[in-house]
């Protein structure tokens, strides 16, 4: 059966059906529509004002590759300039290949690239070292928690280095849908209260961050990358299989089979959640150590690093843990409280919040 005609140009044969609407389109028309939709999101959401210097969080993966490409196409129209910022978490066998892809992209698109490494920023702690440290406690899922928090800090640093005014990340609708599912399953009311919009305005000196691809479905991102023949790195992080997000991802796949618009429906739900004021996180202040945005005396990154240094890697994971605000000297310290380790249920902030969730 011959393919139907493209619904848009009525000239070429359709090459795909859009997952959400089922419309048959040819490659170029689909790409045009996709770009137009991203443009609309940015304009209607007032995400990137003219004159902005935009730091694109580039991981080498499909989302950030598509994001960078689309923004590059739209940059003249939006009046913004782009910088690529890549983060080197120090995951052997994975990040090197991904960074190579980012370097190729930067060369091809002629965009300035800055690479920030955990090893430099965080006193020699690479993700592999963190994983070794947390593996000793028997729950290696926690390394994803570290990665997410530290990466966010690293992106912020990298953005400042290049003089950016905004940070963009490539989260798509499926990511947001998984996030809201995950936050409910883990009872993370604080994050539920914070999430839902297209990004954060940037309180207390942090750069405003946004997600222009938030309303695009993952399938369409992959299709776009295919039709534009984009070169990206498609392997999964070596630590990913242990993350809790995997459950949410499986659930989303099932939901989409029953109802194709499930991801967008979840995004809609997330936009409209109303949480009690008591559940919302306190207004953020500044970290007493590094000055970054923090809701307690120490920001999450400093607290986690603190824990690593003191040989208590699980120190800042989970709610209400003691010893977090104490800046005692290193030495024989009591073993970490054993409660969440043995309890079967996931507590908020724990259980491998997969990296993507924190990068917002």
């Amino acid at each position, binding site marked *: 059966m011959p393919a139907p005609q493209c*619904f*848009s*140009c*009525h000239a070429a044969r359709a090459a795909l*059906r*859009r997952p*959400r*609407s*089922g*419309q048959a*389109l040819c490659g170029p*028309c*689909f790409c*045009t*529509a996709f770009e*137009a*939709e991203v443009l*609309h*999101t*940015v*304009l*209607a*959401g007032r*995400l990137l004002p003219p004159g902005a210097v935009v730091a694109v969080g580039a991981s080498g993966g499909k989302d950030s590759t598509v994001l960078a490409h689309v923004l590059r196409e739209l940059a003249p129209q939006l009046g913004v300039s782009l910088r690529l910022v890549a983060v080197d978490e120090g995951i052997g066998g994975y990040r090197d290949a991904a960074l190579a892809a980012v370097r190729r992209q930067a060369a091809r698109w002629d965009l300035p690239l800055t690479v920030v490494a955990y090893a430099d920023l965080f006193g020699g702690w690479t993700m592999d070292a963190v994983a070794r440290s947390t593996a000793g406690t028997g729950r290696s899922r926690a390394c994803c928690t570290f990665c997410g928090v530290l990466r966010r800090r690293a992106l912020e640093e990298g953005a400042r280095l290049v003089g950016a005014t905004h940070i963009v990340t490539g989260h798509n*609708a499926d990511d947001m849908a998984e996030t*809201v*599912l995950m936050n*409910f*399953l*883990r*009872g*993370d009311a604080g994050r*539920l209260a914070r999430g839902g919009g*297209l990004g954060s305005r940037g309180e207390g000196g942090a750069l405003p961050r946004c997600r222009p691809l938030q*309303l695009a479905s993952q399938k369409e991102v992959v299709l776009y990358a295919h039709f534009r023949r984009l070169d990206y790195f498609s392997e999964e992080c070596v630590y990913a299989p242990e993350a809790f997000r995997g459950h949410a991802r*499986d*659930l989303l796949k*099932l*939901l989409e*089979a*029953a*109802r194709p*618009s*499930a991801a*967008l*429906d*979840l*995004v*809609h*739900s*997330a*936009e*409209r*959640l*109303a*949480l*009690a004021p008591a559940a919302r996180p306190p207004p953020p202040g500044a970290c007493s150590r590094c000055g970054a945005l923090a809701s307690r005396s120490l920001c999450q990154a400093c607290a986690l690093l603190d824990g690593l240094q003191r040989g208590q890697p699980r120190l800042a994971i989970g709610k209400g843990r003691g010893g977090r605000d104490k800046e005692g000297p290193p030495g024989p310290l009591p073993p970490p409280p054993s409660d969440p380790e043995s309890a*079967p*249920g*996931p507590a908020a902030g724990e259980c491998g919040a997969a990296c993507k969730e924190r990068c917002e």
Partner: protein
Amino acid sequence: MPQPWLPLPVSGQNLCQDAAFKDGIWDCFRAFYVHKFRAVLGKNRLIFPGEKVLLAWSGGPSSSSMVWQVLEGLSQDSAKRLRFVPGVVYVDEGAACGRSREDRAKTLTDVRQILQTLGFPWHIVTLEEVFALPPSVLRCSAQDPVGTVGTYKVAVDSFLQQQRTLAAEGLRGSPSSAQGEEQPSQPCTQDSQDPVGPPPAAQTEALSQLFNSVKTLTAKEELLQTLRTHLILHVARTHGYSKVMTGDSCTRLAIKLMTCLALGRGAFLAWDTGFSDERHGDVVVVRPMREHTLKEVAFYNRLFAVPSVFTPAVDTKASEKASIHRLMEGFLLRLQAQFPSTVSTVYRTSEKLVKAPRDGCAAGPRCLLCMCSLDVDSADSATAFGAQTQDFSQTPPPTPRAKAGAPAGPCCAAGLGGAPNCWQGTRPCGREGSRARVLEHLCYACRVTMKDVPCLDPLPPYILVEAQLRSQRPSAEIQEHLVENSDDEAPASGSGARGPPEQEGKEARAARDCINKNFFN
């Protein structure tokens, strides 16, 4: 042999760990179970003494347990006796599930047998009765002010005073029982409602047709739930019940919360899963079983031989992947096996949700079907709703394929999983118009459900009539508004938005844009 102790996830308590294998252990469990029921009611202080409360009984374990507890609660001595006046409603949904007349009659016999032992008025209604519902059932009635703590205390005190007076009078002269309550001492059959025979075949056929035309099981379940709610609401209003109790357990509510989230009902979670749901105004739905897990319910029912009737539902033989409801149930129960605190975590999060402030039910237009305030954005906003309604796939120059008379803007009617005839643009305007007229009054989630209902004509008349009424009614108001804000272009006609003027104009424009773009066709 049952375990000597039961880990009860909601409360985190381990009951009677030291009681070993004693028979008395089950008294402990029973006391705890009943206590939870009473505590949920007492804590919320919404049910006033002497109030008429309709118990929605599905025949399933949770609602049976609830009915049983009410029965027990009413027969206790006066200090601890439950003070409200109950009735029971059972809805026969056989037509929607494709059951035969004989099967339905058999189930009804079992149902009647149980209802007769209860001693309170009962109402057996068939789902076919939705064809006789008045459009007024979809309107939010003026709300009686919800009692404050002070009012509740005053009401209870005056009720107790009344009791004492009546008891004293009873002792003096009257030979009748000293209770003096409104509750009759024998089954009150004159208040009961029981269909004499099976419903008219035409109605059964119409209902079957409606449900068979729905394309997905998810949409079927949602539609069934909507119709059932309207029917129960109508029974409650007709017979003067101001509260409806449903038997949703903790487990059920956690599943419901995640399901509603996936369906796009994030705005309404607090109403859908909270203790009380006052969206209808005069009739408030309460969920007294919300702190009992399904496991506890099963134990209790087994130990104390609570009667229940198994009724096949719309999804009884469906595969797990068939509907969002089933998927979520399967997922949560599986995850619960791996992380035993999953259900309680979800439940606890649900308690942190608030009902976004609304004063009374007149503010803002409400969804025609689920009666929550509309949660739709304007059609070109940078939100999920906007993403569903906009479409950048079509370039402006119209070709012969484009609909005659369609606006020059994007038209995304075709190929949206709707009927194939959408492509051709030869559908008569009237039918399109009537579908659009219903859809514009629906919230996001109800619109997505209706996407799976290809033709809205088989819907019961009360829905279509009310949609028409709402579309027509406020046009005078809109005209008035447009004269005031003369910088707005293009008059709206036939849009049914209500509410404060600024919102109204925006809503009307949004509704019109949405219809013109013919998205949810």
